[in-house]
């Protein structure tokens, strides 16, 4: 096989963007929906981990990975409903509830996930985009999981739906001014319930991707903060689904940078490159916070006390 060298790094970044971006994509799209309705759900890290565990368990018991994905979505929606339900009580802070649910979600996942660490569940299949490619690394990079394609399509659907459909308009109205939504005859609490449940379901599916495809096993270190990074991505993406897609691809590629550089013998700054996704999050937060008018595009009700 040819020695790839530096071209290999480019290929690894490309492959990494496809392989590792899906959890970021699903969580950030889900959080995007929830935040557009005027609530922040910081608990999606817990939802992601819980979804990963449920998916693995369901796939193992049923023998079907797609049933695992379904189970993850259901568990995610339930956790979302719990968040929305608690937040609909008076004087309850959505950020505090989110943090509590993050701890609850990971705790539940670790507890019920104990017997799932050893066994091997059936994995989600990959679509071989280029099965005839002579070049093995390219062939591997082009093994794409259907969930990735669904996530990409979803970003476009949300982009269109938020701008052009009645539910999209209602969601944004609730998020910008619950007073106005109420005046129009919509119940903000119900809209937020659906939006948070949908967000939770998407985060759960993101978790299913982790445990059932890449890296494709259940263990307690599986997420290592990807759900939290994805929540931060939404602010970077300015609550725009297509920007969420772009940011997720960027973060997927950033994760591949450290290993790829080491594989061609670049060993300077190993730790810095390994920390690339986290450093990138920080840099993005600083960049987006220091710009004037940061909150112009933010939903008006975000962070408001009710």
């Amino acid at each position, binding site marked *: 096989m040819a020695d*790839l060298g530096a071209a290999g790094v480019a290929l690894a970044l490309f492959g990494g963007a496809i392989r590792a971006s899906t959890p970021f994509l699903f969580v950030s799209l889900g959080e995007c929906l929830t935040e557009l309705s005027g609530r922040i759900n910081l608990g999606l890290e817990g939802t992601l981990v819980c979804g990963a565990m449920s998916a693995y368990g369901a796939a193992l018991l049923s023998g079907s990975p797609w049933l695992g994905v379904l189970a993850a979505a259901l568990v995610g929606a339930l956790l979302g409903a719990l968040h929305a339900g608690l937040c609909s009580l008076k004087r309850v802070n959505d950020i505090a509830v989110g943090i509590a649910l993050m701890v609850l979600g990971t705790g539940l996942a670790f507890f019920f996930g104990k017997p799932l660490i050893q066994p091997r569940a059936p994995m989600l299949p990959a679509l071989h985009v280029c099965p005839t490619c002579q070049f093995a690394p390219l062939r591997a990079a082009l093994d794409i999981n259907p969930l990735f394609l669904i996530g990409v399509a979803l970003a476009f659907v949300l982009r269109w739906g938020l701008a052009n459909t009645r539910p999209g308009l209602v969601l944004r109205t609730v998020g910008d001014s619950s007073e106005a939504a109420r005046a129009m005859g919509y119940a903000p609490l119900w809209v937020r319930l659906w939006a948070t449940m949908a967000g939770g379901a998407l985060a759960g599916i993101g978790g299913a991707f982790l445990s059932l495809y890449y*890296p494709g096993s259940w263990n307690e270190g599986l997420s290592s903060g990807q759900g939290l990074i994805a929540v931060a991505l939404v602010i970077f993406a300015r609550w725009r689904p297509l920007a969420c897609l772009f940011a997720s691809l960027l973060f997927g590629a950033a994760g591949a940078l*450290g290993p790829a550089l080491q594989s061609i013998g670049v060993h300077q700054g190993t730790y810095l490159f390994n920390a690339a996704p986290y450093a990138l999050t920080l840099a993005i937060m600083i960049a987006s916070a220091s710009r004037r008018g940061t909150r112009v595009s933010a939903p008006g009700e975000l962070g408001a006390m009710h």
Partner: protein
Amino acid sequence: MSLGPYFLRPVVRPLSRRALLAMTSGLAAALAPGRRAGAAGTLEIGFLYVGARDDYGYNQAHAEGAAAVKKMPGVKVLEEERIPETVDVVKSMDSMIELDDAALLFPTSFGYYNPFVLQEAKKYPKVQFRHCGGLWTEKDPKNAGSYFGYIDECQYLSGIVAGHMSKTKKLGFVAAKPIPQVLRNINAFTLGAQRVDPKITTTVIFTGDWSMPVKEAEATNALADQGIDVVTCHVDSPKVTIQTAEGRGLYTCGYHVNQAPLAPKGYLTGAEWNWATVYRNFVAEMQAGKPLPNFVRGGLREGIVKTSPYGAMVPAAARAEADAVKAKLIAGDFVIFKGPIADNTGKQVIAAGVDHGQTDLWLEKMDWLAAGVIGKT
């Protein structure tokens, strides 16, 4: 009354050894009347793990050892999982000692030793601490100690098999952190392979921590992309690396425990622990009232490490060569780190004619990578 556990710590109080013997021979009840019903003659032993104890890796290997201890009479085993290498481990040790009267603790993760285990050993001079992987020296508390296995012997054998199997002559190693044990494994694996063909190289990728599943998968993919065809690892759970490598059609050598069920097509052999030997010895000595050794090491010869059975694809020539070296290692007349050996910056680290046998402590301070390893400490 707290006579029970008091008597159970004979090593630091030699005078009470007789009392311990008396207790174990059935007089316990008379000497130490019911502090906690049934607890008097029981030796409480705590195992502390950094991850889940069924992780197909490091922690599972220790938990299998703990399971062997559980079968011994007169012991009660306490286990706690997922304890970070931070002040958390101090809290866990405190509670095992204060609340459960543990008299012997096995904190099994590398990062626990300094400063946490040393601190606790000073704080509780009557409790015995034996740590996996640390380097106990005479300056350290006498109730602390360390044990480890010369698993690089098995890595050397894996390297021989990998050297026979590799077509591209490029091997890969997914490693967590550049600490001496990891570097020693990388070097032994590479030296084993170079025995077959001196041109063979090993590319190392450090992921930065013991359990980073996504990064381990990325690392394995990056190695595959560079044309590497045999991969092994030193992380807490090799499951992700082995599965990802199997998916990419690579050969793999396992680590910690046998991962053959995860990779039926590519699993060649592997380096495994056999901690049951070590733990049973410690516990038996404690029960017999003997002082525990502070420094325990051993390899294939002592039965502390073992190799996975060869995969069906491993040809007879590879098996014969690995088996021959294994026999010599067991007999104790084979030296892996035998000069001349240069590091990968060209500097000679072991001069010609110098042997660093397994028990040589110099090897436990290893901070170099052998020539042919692509990587940096």
